[in-house]
C-alpha cells in the first residue's frame, strides 16, 4: 500500500487534511466551472470556514430540524450538531472526542475520535479513479434561499454505490442542499439549509451543549488499539465490486468483545465499506478453556440490515463472523461479505 493514491484514500475521511490535499491539485488545469473544482471548493469551505446553520434532514418523508455550528480556530475544529426537534440530542466534537448528549436516554456517550472531518461531511478528492465510477456533471444553476447556486451531480455509473446531488452557494461553495441518490437517481435522503450564517468568529457559548447533564450517566468508549489475531488478519475480500480497494487494515474491539476483530476498510474513493472479521463462537479453541469469555458467545449472525442510508450484511465464513457495513446499496455489502476468505499473501496497508 505504498501507492500515493491509496495512502490518500485512507485519509479521505479526516477532512482536515482535505484542505492540504487541495493545494496539490493543479486547479489551473481545470476551468473554474469544472464541477470537480466546485466540489473541492465545497470540501474546503466545510472544513475551514466558520458556520452556524439550521437545516432540515428529510428521509422517507420524515423531517428533522437540526442546527450545526462549526468553528475553526488556531487550526482546531470544534463542532456541535443539535437536534432541534423532540429528542434534544446533541453531538459535540472537540479535543479529539465525540460527545453524544442523549437527554431522552439520560446518557452521555464519549468516544475518542481522531478524525476532524466536519459533521456535515464533505466529498473526498476526485481523482481519475473516482471518475471511472462516478459521472460528475454540472446541472443548470438555480437559486436557494434567494442565492445563486451551482448544482453538481455525482452519479454512480453502476448499482454498487450511491450518488449525490449538491446545491452549492455560488459565493461560498457551501452546500445549501444535498441529496443522496441511488444509481437510478432516486432520492434516498436529503438535507437542506433554512438558514446559514458564516460569521467571522463564533463564541464558545454557541459550541457548548445546551443539555443539562445533571443526573445523566456517562459512558466512555475505549480507544481500540489492539491487533487482531493472525488468523483473523489473514482474511480479505477476494472479490470486490469495480473500483473498490483495500485502504485500511486494522483491528477494532467491537462492543464488549474481549478479542479484537480484524477491521478492513474498502473504498472506491468516495463510498466506504468496513468489513469486520471476528472469531466465531463455533470455533473457540484453547483460549476458551482459560477464559470462557475470550470468545464471542453470540450465535452466528446472518442477514441484511438497514443502517441509515446504507446497509450491513453479516455472514459466516469458515467459522468466522464476517460483517460488511457501509453507506452503499445492499448488494455491495453482500457482495463483499460473501467474498471474504483467507488470503496467504494478504496485502497490508500502512496507516
Amino acid at each position, binding site marked *: 500500500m505504498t501507492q500515493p493514491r491509496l495512502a490518500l484514500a485512507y485519509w479521505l475521511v479526516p477532512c482536515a487534511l482535505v484542505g492540504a490535499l487541495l493545494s496539490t491539485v493543479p486547479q489551473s488545469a481545470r476551468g473554474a466551472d469544472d464541477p470537480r473544482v466546485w466540489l473541492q471548493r465545497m470540501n474546503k469551505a466545510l472544513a475551514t470556514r466558520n458556520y452556524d446553520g439550521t437545516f432540515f434532514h428529510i428521509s422517507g418523508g420524515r423531517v*428533522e430540524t437540526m442546527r450545526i455550528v462549526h468553528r475553526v480556530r488556531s487550526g482546531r475544529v470544534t463542532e456541535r450538531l443539535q437536534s432541534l426537534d423532540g429528542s434534544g440530542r446533541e453531538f459535540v466534537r472537540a479535543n479529539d472526542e465525540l460527545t453524544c448528549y*442523549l437527554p431522552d436516554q439520560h446518557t452521555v456517550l464519549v468516544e475518542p475520535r481522531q478524525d476532524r472531518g466536519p459533521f456535515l461531511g464533505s466529498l473526498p478528492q476526485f481523482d481519475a479513479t473516482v471518475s471511472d465510477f462516478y459521472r460528475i456533471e454540472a446541472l443548470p444553476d438555480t437559486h436557494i434561499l434567494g442565492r445563486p447556486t451551482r448544482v453538481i451531480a455525482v452519479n454512480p455509473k453502476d448499482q454498487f454505490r450511491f450518488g449525490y446531488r449538491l446545491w452549492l452557494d455560488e459565493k461560498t461553495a457551501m452546500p445549501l442542499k444535498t441529496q443522496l441518490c441511488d444509481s437510478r437517481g432516486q432520492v434516498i435522503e436529503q438535507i437542506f439549509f433554512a438558514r446559514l450564517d458564516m460569521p467571522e468568529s463564533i463564541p464558545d457559548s454557541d459550541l457548548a451543549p445546551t443539555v443539562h447533564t445533571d443526573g445523566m450517566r456517562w459512558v466512555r468508549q475505549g480507544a481500540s488499539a489492539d491487533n487482531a489475531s493472525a488468523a483473523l488478519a489473514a482474511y480479505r475480500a477476494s472479490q470486490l465490486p469495480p473500483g473498490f480497494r483495500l485502504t485500511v487494515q486494522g483491528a477494532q474491539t467491537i462492543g464488549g468483545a474481549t478479542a479484537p476483530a480484524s477491521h478492513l476498510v474498502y473504498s472506491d474513493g468516495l463510498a466506504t465499506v468496513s468489513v469486520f472479521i471476528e472469531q466465531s463462537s463455533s470455533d473457540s479453541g484453547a483460549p476458551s478453556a482459560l477464559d470462557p469469555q475470550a470468545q464471542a458467545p453470540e450465535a452466528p449472525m*446472518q*442477514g441484511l440490515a438497514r443502517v441509515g442510508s446504507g446497509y450491513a450484511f453479516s455472514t459466516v465464513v469458515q467459522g468466522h463472523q464476517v460483517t460488511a457495513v457501509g453507506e452503499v446499496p445492499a448488494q455491495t455489502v453482500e*457482495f463483499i461479505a460473501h467474498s471474504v476468505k483467507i488470503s496467504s499473501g494478504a496485502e497490508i496497508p500502512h496507516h
Partner: protein
Amino acid sequence: MSEQIREQVSAFLDGELPDTETELLLKRLTRDGELRESFGRYALIGEALRGAGSQILTRGFASRVNLAIDGEPAQAPAHAQLRREARWWRPIAGVTVAAGVAAVAIVALQQRSISPHLSGASLTAQNVAAPLKAAAPAPSQLPLQGGGGPREALSYTVVPAASTEAPSAIAPARLTNYVFAHSKYSSGLGQRGLLTDLLIDDDEVPPIPAQRAMPPPPAPDTRVAP
C-alpha cells in the same frame, strides 16, 4: 396545511421563497410538529413529482403516506409508487427492533439484550429479499475485480440462506457497534448521514434497560442475546 403555507412550502422546496418568508416558515416549522409532518410528506411527494424517481425509500412512513396530505391530488402516489422499506435499524432478516441508533448504541454499550419483536418478521424478510434478488445481476455478469488474490469464480448468493431465519439476524446492539466503528472511516457525506441519523428522535425507541457502569468489562450475565 393552509393554502398559503402550502404555497410557501412549495416555493421553499423550489428555492424560490424570499429570505424573509423563509425565516418565518422555518420558525413555524420548528414550532409546529404537525406542520413539519405535512412538510415532510410534501417534500417526499414533491420529489416524486419532480421526476426524481419512481421509487423512494421510506422509513416507516409509506404506510401513512397514502396521500393523506390534505388537499393533495391523488396522482402523486401513482408517480411515487411508494414502497414500504425496512425501518432504520430493523434487521431485515427478522429481528424487528425499531429503535434510534443512539438508543441502540447505549444498549450495546451496556451489553443488555433487547427483546426482539418477531411479529411480521418473515414478511419483512420476503418484502426486502425479493427486490434484492431481482436487482442483483447474475454472477456471471458481475464485473469482478480481484481483492488481492487471483480471480476466481464467485460464490455469491444474493439472498442469504439464513435471511428467513429470524433468530440469526444481526443483533442490533452488535450492529450499532459495527456502525460506530465504521463511521470513523466513512467518507464525509456518508458519515454525516450516520451522525444525523443518530440525532433523529424515534418515537418507537424502547425504554433503555438498566445501566452498566463503565469501564466496560463484559459481564457474562449481560451478554447480548442473539
